[in-house]
Each structure stands twice: as C-alpha cells, then as structure tokens.
C-alpha cells in the first residue's frame, strides 16, 4: 500500500496530466458523436451573447456586399412574381388551388459566429427555440445553401456548416436529375465534392448542382454550386467531382432558416417502413 502511495506522489504530475488528457479526449469523442452531449459550444447563453454583442462591428463591413445580393434576389423574386400574375390574369378568372399546399416556411436570422478554418465548421445564428427554430432545419444565404441546424438553445442555434467533413447534403445535377451527396474535403472553403455520381452519367463543367429535396430538410432546387472539375477515379465506378459553392461562406451574414412543415410526418413514414423491414 505504501509503495502505491509513493508511486502516486512521485508521479503525481504525470498522473494528473494523463487524467486531464483522457478527459479532453472523452470530450472530443462525445462531441464528435453527438452535438447535444456537451453544451459547451458557441450557441450557449454566455458565448452566444458575447458574439451577439460584438456582431454589429463586423457586419458593418459586410453591409455593402449584402445589399447587392439582396437587390439581386429581389429582382429575381419580382420576375417570378410577375410571371405568375400575368399567367393568372390571362385566365380571366380566379381559381382555388387545392393541389398545392405550402410545405416550406422561411425565417430570417443573422450569423453571429462563423468559422471556415477548422475541419468541422459550425455557425451560430442569433435565433433559437424561443423564435421557433428547431433541430434539422435548413439554413441558406441569398446565394445558396449554408448548413443544417443541429442544436438549439433558447435564443441561439448551432448550424452544421456545408464546410464540415461530417456533413452530407443530398444534391442533384439540375440538367439530368442524377443525385448524390455533397461533402467537404476540408481543403478550400470555396470548393466541395459531389459524391456517388456513377461514371456513365453525362457531366459537363459548368453544370449547376441543386438540392434534391430528398432529405426532408431543404426544398428541391436550391442552388449549391457549379461543377468546376471532374474525372474518373481509377477502379471506382463513380466520378470525382469538385463544385464551386455559390454561397461565399467567408462573407455570409444574413441567412434564411427553412422549416419543413411536414418533416415529422415524412420521417415517421420512413421510420415505419424501416421498422417493417
């Protein structure tokens, strides 16, 4: 017994060191597995408020750029709107559309913390549970998709960025509807990879990639990026495709949060089928 105490006293620094390291590693692993396991991220109250208080300073520099995008989007929306109006007035009658039901709701939010330099990047936005944000909502900027909400606190939410090696967003080629998933290889914040496209599919440089709408998170057809490079991998049956993202995540500031009203219903249906199998 005495020798054990002697050992502990002699090596107490190293033992303490090992304990702290084990503790840190456990945190890394549990955080990698489940975002809610440890509530020490930047969407918690303390760090959230500090970032929110600081945000005006940084967003001031982005105002000019942001305005330009908003005007562009407004112009696009106006085009769409007037196209539909003309179509309606040509009919000379009003009709009730019973087939269409609104599935997606959009809300605005502001990014208060953003990172692009890690391997697994997260954003914090300034709205949370109290403002109606829930887990698994999509987040997009004016230019294109940004990420998916993974955790919410009362007033803030944590968003898994597209630039996260753990993410995977269901996407398709707009021209021919072949679908795959978008992931990040943690190299350049402007480029991501499109996986699972078989190599018999006709692919061109400059093809637009949009969301597929299969994931219950994003509606169909939201812009993601354009193909800048593709080649056939050695023995694999799939292409290696590199996309340039439409949204500049370094400058993203204001975003839309997308709520899928039927998300739960869709998920339950899927669960039921899986249980049967």
């Amino acid at each position, binding site marked *: 017994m005495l020798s054990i105490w002697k050992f502990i006293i002699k090596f*107490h*620094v190293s033992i*303490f*060191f090992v304990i*702290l*390291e084990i*503790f*840190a*590693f*456990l*945190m*890394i*692993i549990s*955080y*990698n597995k489940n975002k809610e396991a*440890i509530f*020490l*991220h*930047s969407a*918690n109250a*303390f*760090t959230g408020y*500090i*970032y929110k208080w*600081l945000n005006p300073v*940084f967003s001031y520099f982005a105002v000019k750029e942001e305005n330009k995008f908003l005007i562009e989007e407004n112009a696009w929306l106006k085009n769409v709107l007037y196209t539909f109006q003309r179509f309606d007035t040509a009919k000379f009658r009003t009709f009730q559309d019973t087939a269409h039901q609104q599935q997606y709701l959009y809300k605005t939010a502001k990014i208060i*913390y953003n*990172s*692009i*330099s*890690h*391997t*697994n*990047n*997260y954003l*914090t936005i300034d709205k949370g549970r109290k403002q109606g944000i829930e887990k698994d909502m999509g987040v997009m900027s004016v230019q294109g998709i940004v990420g998916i909400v993974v955790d919410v606190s009362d007033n803030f939410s*944590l968003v898994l960025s597209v630039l996260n090696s753990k993410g995977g967003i269901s996407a398709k080629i707009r021209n021919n509807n072949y679908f795959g998933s978008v992931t990040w290889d*943690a*190299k*350049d*914040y402007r480029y991501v990879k499109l996986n699972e496209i078989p190599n018999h599919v006709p692919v061109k440089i400059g093809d637009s990639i949009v969301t597929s709408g299969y994931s219950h998170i994003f509606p169909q057809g939201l812009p993601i990026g354009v193909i800048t490079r593709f080649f056939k991998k050695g023995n694999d049956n799939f292409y290696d495709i590199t996309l340039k993202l439409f949204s500049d995540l*370094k400058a993203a500031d204001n975003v839309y949060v997308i709520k899928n009203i039927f998300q739960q219903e869709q998920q339950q249906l899927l669960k039921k089928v899986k249980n049967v199998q």
Partner: protein
Amino acid sequence: MFSSKLLQYIGIFLFAILFQVLILNQVRLTPLDLSPMLYILFLLLLPFETSKSILLLIGFLVGLTIDMFTNTIGVNCASTVMMCYFRPNIIFSLSSRDDVKGNKPTIHHMGLMWFIKYTLFSVFIHHFFYYYLEVFTLSNSFFTLLKIITATIFSSLLIICSQYFIFKE
C-alpha cells in the same frame, strides 16, 4: 504584492482570450485559411516557479475557454495541456536553473534568441496536437503538416511581436 501580480496575470488572461476570440478568430490567412493563435502567450508568460500541476490545470481551463467560443470542444484543451506538460522540459533544455532564478519568461528578462526558441518549440507542440486532433485522422497527413508549420510560423511571429508592442514592462 502578491495580489497585484495575480491581477496582472488575470489581465493578461482576459486580454489574450478576448483578443483571440474577438479579433484573431475573424482573421483568416489566405492560402490555408488559418487563424493565428495568440492566446498561448498567456501560458508561455506564466512565472517559472508555477508548480507543474497548477500549470496543467491552468492550461486545461484556458483551452476549454477557447473551445467554448470556437465549437472545437476538447481540441484546444488537449493541446494546451500537452504544451503545459512539456513546458518545464523546454525551459530547462534551453537554460540552466541559475538563468531562470528571479527572472520571468519574457523577452526582456531572457533575451530575444531564448524567447524565439522557447516560443517556436511550445507553439509547435501545441499546433501539432491541435491540427491532428482537429482532423482526427492520419490520412492527408502531409497537408496537415503543412498547415501546422505555416500556423506555427504565424502564431510565433505574432507572439514575439506582441512582446514589443503590448507587454513592454
């Protein structure tokens, strides 16, 4: 006497954390999108006499604070603890016990060359563990190493410059 010293270190701590979180984390050096890390400075400046266990504990807390702000739970923590564990070894391999007596680990007490070596070794240990733990894989090892070396140079430069501009005493 003691409390004024303690206050001074708390001041450096707050400055290092806030400067890191509010300013440096918004900066991205373009080729590899790295943020330089200045907050390690606080751990480098702790007095020579600090006991090893206290050093480890402070390292852990500082790492955890930064982790909370950057959504990298545990990564900074593990690397700062690692750095604090090796700090005494680095110090005593660079200087004898007599050199250290009555001095502080700053440029003004220990000289420029000593401080450069001290900073480079410590920052390299920190960044080495930081970037490998962040990626959490050994594939793409060369790219990670490139990141580590670039980041070490930038962070060390910043830490050494800060000695001339901010902590003049």
